[in-house]
């Protein structure tokens, strides 16, 4: 009878879990007011208040359609870039009354194709995508053409020539935004060299992630150019905890005592912090320097002890721009009738106070890169005299100083 009970219990468990899945989904597909409620819980008080205002006067203006947008990204829970992109977009979505469906965790082309298919089937108006492989992009566009769904790429430009031509030809393709990842990598190398590092240890992540791949390419190119000695190139196995970085870095330092600089192509999952901790605990201050993509948590100590020389971050804005292009297109007020290809800037943080400010204004809790006004100004619906040039200016202007100036600091 134990088994009977068990059977029923588990059966119910299945049902409950499914229903749970559904209900949480259902609540998202409900009326706009409910959406704001939902998002309120996710964001901190002040924004929520603002959000409600916005909604009310949306109802008044009534111009802007409510939109469903699917986001296909490598991950929304990596605690780093993917995560902050999600937060950033949710923040914007709440202002512009857009409901996002995030599909993370698809790291290979096939499952991305699945996601796009499913999102189209789910009847989204537009898709924001960070493609894994160049060569699948034309497939995406053709799928979107068929379904009349708009597509916009983030963190990525189309490299492959003939694919590019096909993509640019398709009418569903809105445009793409990407950082100068390569340049950023090169800049970091330079920063380390300035600090006097001559024997670098490179800590890379497994290939296959389009963003980091390009960063690493940039770094390698620059290093060859300058002819700097690389003691070891250490590729972190997927799933390494920050502790893993410590082990790796430590082993490098023990095997190559001459190593005097670490360069991480990704640090969002505690990597940099681990390495910095290690340098601290081994008391190699001034001897070993660290430069990295993504943000360090404890920037203060890192900079004060002259361990960290530079970090490159703020790229969540990239997704924002890509989305705005898509948004304008979907509201029937396209910025341009041709696909737009933009380059967005990195934010460089090179000392303590910069870091402090960055933490304050870029942090997940309260995105203030752009105030609600400014965000609306990027949407023709609210700001009719917006042109492609103006938008390009905004994008080009984005950077450390820019944000602070606009915030009047």
């Amino acid at each position, binding site marked *: 009878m134990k088994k009977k009970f068990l059977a029923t219990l588990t059966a119910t*468990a299945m049902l409950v879990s499914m229903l749970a899945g559904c209900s949480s989904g259902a609540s998202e597909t409900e009326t706009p007011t409910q959406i704001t409620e939902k998002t309120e819980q996710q964001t901190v008080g002040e924004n929520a208040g603002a959000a409600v205002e916005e909604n009310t006067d949306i109802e008044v203006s009534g111009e802007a359609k409510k939109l469903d947008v699917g986001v296909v990204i490598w991950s*929304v829970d990596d605690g780093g870039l993917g995560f902050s992109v999600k937060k950033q977009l949710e923040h914007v979505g709440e202002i512009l009354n857009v409901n996002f469906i995030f599909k993370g965790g*698809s790291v290979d082309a*096939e499952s991305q194709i699945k996601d796009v298919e*499913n999102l189209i089937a*789910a009847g989204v108006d537009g898709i924001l995508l960070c493609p894994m492989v160049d*060569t699948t992009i034309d497939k995406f566009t053709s799928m979107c053409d068929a379904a009349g769904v708009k597509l916009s790429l983030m963190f990525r430009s189309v490299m492959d020539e003939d694919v590019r031509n096909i993509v640019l030809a398709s009418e569903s393709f809105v445009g793409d935004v990407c950082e100068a990842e390569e340049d950023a990598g090169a800049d970091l190398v330079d920063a380390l060299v300035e600090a006097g590092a001559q024997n670098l240890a490179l800590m890379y992540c497994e290939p296959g992630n389009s963003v980091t791949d390009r960063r690493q390419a940039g770094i390698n190119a620059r290093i060859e150019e300058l002819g700097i000695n690389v003691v070891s190139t250490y590729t972190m196995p997927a799933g390494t905890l920050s502790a893993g970085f410590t082990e790796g870095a430590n082993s490098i330092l023990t095997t190559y005592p001459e190593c005097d600089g670490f360069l991480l192509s990704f640090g969002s999952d505690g990597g940099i912090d681990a390495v910095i901790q290690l340098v601290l605990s081994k008391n190699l201050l001034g001897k070993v320097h660290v430069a990295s993509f993504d943000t360090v948590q404890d920037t203060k100590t890192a900079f004060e002890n002259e361990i960290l020389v530079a970090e490159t971050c703020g790229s969540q804005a990239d997704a924002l721009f890509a989305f705005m292009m898509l948004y304008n297109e979907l509201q029937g007020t396209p910025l341009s009738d041709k696909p737009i290809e933009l380059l967005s800037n990195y934010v460089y943080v090179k000392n303590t106070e910069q870091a402090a400010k960055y933490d304050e204004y870029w942090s997940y809790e309260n995105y203030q890169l752009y105030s609600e006004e400014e965000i609306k100004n990027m949407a023709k619906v609210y700001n009719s005299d917006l042109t492609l040039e103006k938008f390009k200016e905004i994008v080009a202007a984005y950077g450390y100083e820019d944000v602070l100036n606009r915030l009047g600091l």
Partner: protein
Amino acid sequence: MNENKNTMEVKSIKMKEFRHNEMIQKLLPFLGLIIVVTIFSVITKGQAIALSNITIVLVQSCIYMVAAMGVTFTISQGNMDMSLGGIIVASCMAAGILGESSPWVILPICIIVSIICELIVAVIHIYLNIPTIIGSFIVMYLARGIASTIMLNRSANIVLPNALKTLDHNYFYCFIAMMAIIVSYILSEYTQLGKINRAIGANQSAVETSGVPMNKYKILAFIYSGITLGIASFMMFIRSVGVTAKTGMGFETNTILILVIGGISLTGGSNVRVIKAVIGCLLFAFLDNALILVGVNSTEVGLIKGIIFLAAVAVGFDRKSMTHIV
């Protein structure tokens, strides 16, 4: 004497529950499919069972379907294979690189590479008497490692030759999947391969003691699984146009989920049936699709899958074959 009686005692108690449990096992997958489909078609106001959506689900399930067909044979011996994803990336990459010269070698190469990998797993298991789960992890890591190094040392990414792009069509996937199902069904229901593999899963030592050349059938099963996996990687290659180091990531987990959701007990035995795997694939693909239709975010999807996994196992697994398992 005493112990033997004890075990008999246990059996006598189990008898009552047995019928009940067996019935659930038989019906669960079908019920599951029906329940899930109905629930979601209600929530999505019929959107989920719109013809267009059904086709999407079918096509999406094809690749897993083909792979799962082979895996059914290895799992029916109670041998868990965690190397699938690794093997796929390995064979796709090999095929892609060699296929640049002539696209017609791609399919053969996919199949050959997969068979070799699967054989490694089988040999480790049979001759070193080490659980396949360990052997397959080794193969998986090796394959991924090789794939990564190749990608690291390669400027251009590996692309599908245009000659094969024409194959990228719904009918193609469905046709291959159908073939795979038919062949596997015949093999598992009307030949020794299937029957004896199930027997091995049910009670290995009995099969051995009877004097069946067990290792032969084990190896055959792995070879067949290699063939289907090779075809699956071929489809994967065509569908995803290019290959990256991450191709086929998480394929093994999903396959195991599929089998379990289909009501197959991972310790093998008589309840492993091809048809269950098919249902599992459909259910899985449908779940993936429907959860997006209702707008559930990806992370929750993972959680739901996990719970369903344990739930399905708890109901589907027959505990009488628990004796020889740690």
